[in-house]
């Protein structure tokens, strides 16, 4: 943009030239948007749960730092994801206003920002807590960026099943930050979030699959159809609910958590069933605008927060 040189009148000296897209410049909120703040709430919550249910104590400053590192690492992975996926983000309604797509932040800027945050969060975690926690944190970033974003997302409808592991790391990292070791309970928490991700995300994709179809991303409804996706939601929910009883059955909690998990699971199964039996035409297209799938998606979020919260309360107050 050769005609857009700005002369700094406050003492600086040489005029400079703005690159295309920099004319209006980015605002701090654009850089915050790169971190996918809406996704971070679950990351922070599950990381805190990992810290709370772990045996032992931790200085509050170090605990807050550990959560900060988990949050920044997840944000860094989100920023690198936005850099890599900027081509498909541009054609999806849900993502077409992201700052890299609109040009408010350059792709190189987003990548550099993500790398700096990733390296910084891992180093800070190692210095503040222990290097095993830092290693698991680094692996979680690698998993989301390389395994999910770059490898699985555009290649297989199982992308969410395997890629869901990326979101299951925070409670494990929180636990390791306190104890310095990997034990059974945090692995069970990992498995619960891993199994929760497919029904949660496929319920969403049932009504948002047009976006994925336009972008050429092989989400399950695009590849196998809505009917099969509804069936998979039920199957994964059936696998998830018994798994959530594991902390009680393995002696890590009292019956109170077991009862809460059973009740919450019954609610999830009901929503999954209603999604499966939704009124639909011969092609599997919902005749109710996917109302049961939307309700199932919303419930799945409440479900996970309530389930993890119940476990933490049980461990802190009763176990």
């Amino acid at each position: 943009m050769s005609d857009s040189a700005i002369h700094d009148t406050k003492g600086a000296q040489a005029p400079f030239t703005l690159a295309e897209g920099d004319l209006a410049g980015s605002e701090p909120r654009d850089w915050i948007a790169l971190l996918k703040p809406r996704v971070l709430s679950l990351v922070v919550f599950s990381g805190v749960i990992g810290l709370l249910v772990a045996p032992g104590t931790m200085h509050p400053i170090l605990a807050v730092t550990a959560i900060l590192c988990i949050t920044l690492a997840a944000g860094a992975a989100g920023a690198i994801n936005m850099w890599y996926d900027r081509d498909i983000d541009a054609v999806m309604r849900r993502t077409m206003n992201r700052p890299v797509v609109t040009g408010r932040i350059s792709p190189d800027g987003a990548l550099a920002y993500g790398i700096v945050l990733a390296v910084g969060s891992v180093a800070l975690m190692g210095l503040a807590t222990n290097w095993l926690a830092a290693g698991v944190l680094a692996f979680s970033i690698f998993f989301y960026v390389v395994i999910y974003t770059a490898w699985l997302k555009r290649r297989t409808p199982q992308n969410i099943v395997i890629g869901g592991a990326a979101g299951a790391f925070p409670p494990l990292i929180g636990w390791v930050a306190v104890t310095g070791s990997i034990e059974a309970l945090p692995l069970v928490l990992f498995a619960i979030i891993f199994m929760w991700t497919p029904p949660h995300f496929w319920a969403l994709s049932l009504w948002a699959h047009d976006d994925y179809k336009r972008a050429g991303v092989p989400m399950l409804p695009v590849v196998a159809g809505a009917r099969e996706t509804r069936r998979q939601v039920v199957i994964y929910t059936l696998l998830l609910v018994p798994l959530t009883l594991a902390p009680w059955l393995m002696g890590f909690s009292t019956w109170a958590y077991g009862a809460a998990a059973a009740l919450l699971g019954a609610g999830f199964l009901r929503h999954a069933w209603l999604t499966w039996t939704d009124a639909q035409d011969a092609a599997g297209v919902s005749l109710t605008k996917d109302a049961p799938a939307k309700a199932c998606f919303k419930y799945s979020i409440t479900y996970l927060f309530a389930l993890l919260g119940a476990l933490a309360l049980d461990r802190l107050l009763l176990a």
Partner: protein
Amino acid sequence: MTPEEKTLFYRRRRARNWAILGALAALVVLFYLISVARLLRG
């Protein structure tokens, strides 16, 4: 570049600079607190 665009550009650049200053200051305080916490832990 119109005067309005120039004003907007400067406003946004100033906001970014303040945000960077805030982040750096927070990092300094955080490192100090981590050091104290680790010293207290022994």
